[in-house]
């Protein structure tokens, strides 16, 4: 889950506040849309359908995320894993990479009596958050420019 919050300096601003407000909203929504598309790439080769939603808990916040439990296990990692994979199994995702590949192999069985080392966290949320945090000034600049054209 990625949360985007702009930092707005206090004090008087000698410009049209309504336009600036609209620019900020556009920048927040633009970043959220970019984040949503990036999340889509992480499940693109999955047979499981995962949907990423953009919500707006307040006018200055956008949250992009999913309620999919399995995705959470991959994103955050787990301490143990109960699935045993076939030899030659290749996961579809890698830690720290935004995207997914075809992968290969299958799950042989799932048993709580055969715990395995946990799932390595992919950190999709962290990596995507960092990427769009760096990109946000450009998006905000573009949104402000569109208001003063």
């Amino acid at each position, binding site marked *: 889950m990625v949360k985007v919050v702009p930092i707005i300096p206090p004090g008087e601003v000698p410009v049209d506040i309504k336009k600036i407000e609209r620019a900020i909203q556009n920048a927040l929504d*633009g970043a959220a849309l970019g984040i949503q598309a990036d999340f*889509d790439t992480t499940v693109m080769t999955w047979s499981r*359908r995962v949907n990423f939603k953009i919500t707006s808990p307040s006018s200055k916040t956008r949250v992009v995320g999913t309620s999919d439990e399995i995705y959470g296990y991959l994103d955050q990692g787990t301490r143990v894993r109960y699935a045993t994979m076939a030899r030659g199994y290749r996961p579809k995702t890698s830690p720290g990479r935004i*995207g997914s590949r075809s992968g290969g192999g299958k799950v042989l069985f799932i048993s709580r009596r055969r715990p395995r080392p946990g799932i390595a966290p992919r950190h999709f949320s962290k990596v995507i958050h960092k990427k769009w945090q760096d990109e946000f000034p450009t998006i905000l600049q573009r*949104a402000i420019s569109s208001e003063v*054209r």
Partner: protein
Amino acid sequence: MKSLSSLLRRAVEEFGRIYRSRIVRHQKVDSWYQEMSNRLRFYHTAAYLLGARIPPRDLTPEDRQRIDSRVSSQLAFLRRFMADLRGGRYESSPGGGQARAQLYAAALRASWWEGKTRGLPLPAQPGDGTTQCISRCNCSWEIHHLGGDDYDCYWRLGSSDASCQTCIARSRRWNPLRIRNGRVQVTNVHLMGFDSVLDGWEGVW
């Protein structure tokens, strides 16, 4: 786009020539960086002007800020390149260094799109480095002006078969990206899966 192609070709040639003259022959990293940063500023401004179809005198301060934003992101990459050159990374393979220098031309595409879509609060531009294909992106924006401040903006995939996953996802999500009354509209459409577009996809990332 024809004018952009010739600008890109010219930039590729010039960035290669600067690399050969400053680095390969004389190992002058500082003067190479200085000349490259000047030429990057020139080319990004030219690409923006071509996209916007305006003469230089019509550039507003906001236009300049958008160009500056693109140039400064490129300069950050250039500084990393400079550090690699100082570390002697391309001493044994000057061709590799020259090819890396010439890659800076590809980023002009994003400035061209910045100019072309001037005045629209879009989340990204083709070739701006936010996709898996980075600056090799051949995608485009198709803008439909519906009147007033209403626009439908379609992220169209490039003609190449090897579109990256980010571009595929954007072409599905931003199909169209709606701007109504000047506000970007967020939609949470549940995508039905990527099976049809991913047939035979081997991956670009």
